[in-house]
């Protein structure tokens, strides 16, 4: 059931994302204790676990918002170079960090839209100023993306005018506008009112069906079971068990995972 990884991902078939033996400490607290994961093109991987199990930190280590103390990361075959500085692990090149982040779309729990810009401005910001693509082209593409996530009529509104679900869909459009290789979702529905969760999950499901490679930290069991093709259950900074949803949810998983989903069923 555990995913095997080849000895050198650079010579093997290229994964969209490959993470090996990530470790991360905050002070004396060891949050990640050796996590490895690979995502092929089109994989939708749900990462489950109770709070404090290190799910979000793991996701943030992948796009370098946190820097792992140990371990290696490849994005679309490109190895992220690290150096030791004063005994701490650091990215070797800030240019590479920017480039890697541009290839990874991140969707945050609290949306994090830029409050002083309209929705359309939020979506074209990256393509125009980071990728330096022609503005008119970016606007046309942004409008198509906003259409796709169902908030085209809100494109000239500011984030504060929108409901949480609309803001999160705008944030997804903003991430997609960068044409990312992999999308990372950090509890995208956890800050939403229950009746707004569905509209965001529908957008995510459509993305999965289009073949987008996705890592989703979530508490939505139905999404994990129905949409993802792999479930990773994290516990105390390690991957407790992983597998395809049918096996995982039919009871072939670890006792800890069975207890975890038992809590959700109430």
């Amino acid at each position, binding site marked *: 059931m555990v995913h095997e990884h080849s000895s050198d991902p650079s010579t093997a078939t290229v994964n969209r994302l490959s993470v090996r033996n990530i470790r991360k400490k905050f002070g004396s607290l060891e949050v990640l204790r050796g996590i490895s994961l690979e995502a092929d093109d089109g994989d939708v991987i749900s990462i489950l676990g109770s709070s404090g199990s290190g799910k979000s930190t793991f996701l943030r280590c992948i796009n370098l918002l946190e820097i792992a103390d140990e371990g290696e990361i490849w994005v679309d075959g490109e190895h992220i170079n690290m150096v030791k500085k004063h005994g701490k692990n650091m990215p070797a090149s800030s240019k590479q960090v*920017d480039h890697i982040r541009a290839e990874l779309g991140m969707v945050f729990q609290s949306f994090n*839209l830029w409050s*002083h810009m309209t929705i359309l401005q939020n979506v074209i910001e990256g393509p125009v*100023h*980071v990728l330096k693509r022609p503005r008119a082209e970016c606007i046309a593409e942004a409008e198509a993306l906003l259409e796709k996530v169902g908030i085209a009529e809100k494109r000239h509104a500011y984030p*504060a*005018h929108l409901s949480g679900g609309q803001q999160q869909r705008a944030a997804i459009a*903003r991430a997609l506008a960068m044409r990312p290789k992999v999308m990372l979702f950090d509890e995208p529905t956890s800050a939403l009112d229950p009746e707004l969760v569905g509209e965001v999950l529908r957008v995510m499901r459509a993305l999965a069906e289009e073949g987008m490679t996705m890592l989703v930290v979530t508490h939505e069991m139905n999404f994990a079971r129905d949409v993802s093709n792999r479930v990773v259950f994290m516990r105390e900074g390690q991957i407790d068990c992983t597998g395809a949803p049918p096996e995982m949810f039919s009871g072939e998983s670890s006792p800890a995972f069975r207890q975890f989903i038992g809590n959700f069923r109430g």
Partner: protein
Amino acid sequence: MDFAFIFQTMKTLLAAVPMTLGLFFLSVSSGGLLALLIVWMRVAKNPILSNFAKGYIFVFRGSPLLIQMFLVFYGLGQFGFIRYSFLWPFLREPFVCAVLSLALCTAGYSAEIFRGGLRAVPAREIEAARSIGMSGFLLVRRIIGPIAFRHALPAYSTEIVMMVKSTALASLVTVWEVTGVAQRLISQTYRTMEVFLCAAVIYLVLNFLILQAMALLEYRLSHHRRAAVSRLP
């Protein structure tokens, strides 16, 4: 009331308004640029830079502007290396000294105002920018700067109004701006009340116009907040 005298006084004082505005615009613009440099040093991780900025802000906020101006105007000439340098033709001009000391002083205050604006930028909006690959100057120019400026604007408009009034101190280093001309008129006519009232009216009108402009700027930069409030029933 002697309207003829007031009219004549107004005319004389208005002729000095360009000098007051010149002091104001030059010192606010160069002081604003200097403030950006100071605040950049103030928030830098390098302790030498941040301590230098702290010291600068302490000195220029903590001592009277009038004394700073006297030190620049009367003090600099005592140093031979300044008196014989290529800068001396500029530094012996009262106008240059007044602009220099006004700019140095407002830079100290403005740097702290801008720092307050920076601290109000939500960390998660910065994180969102980093997550799409923004960093360095691009991040400052597109995200941090515009948000910080909006937060700093109300306090900064107060500083600008203070600067209009501070230009009056330049009269004490022989710059013939509105207050200086008013004092000269008083020494000629001994009519303190009328002359100073006229001068006060001029400052009030200038500040009224400047405050209107700042309010307009603030209005145009705050669509995102205003609209959010108007949604409430």
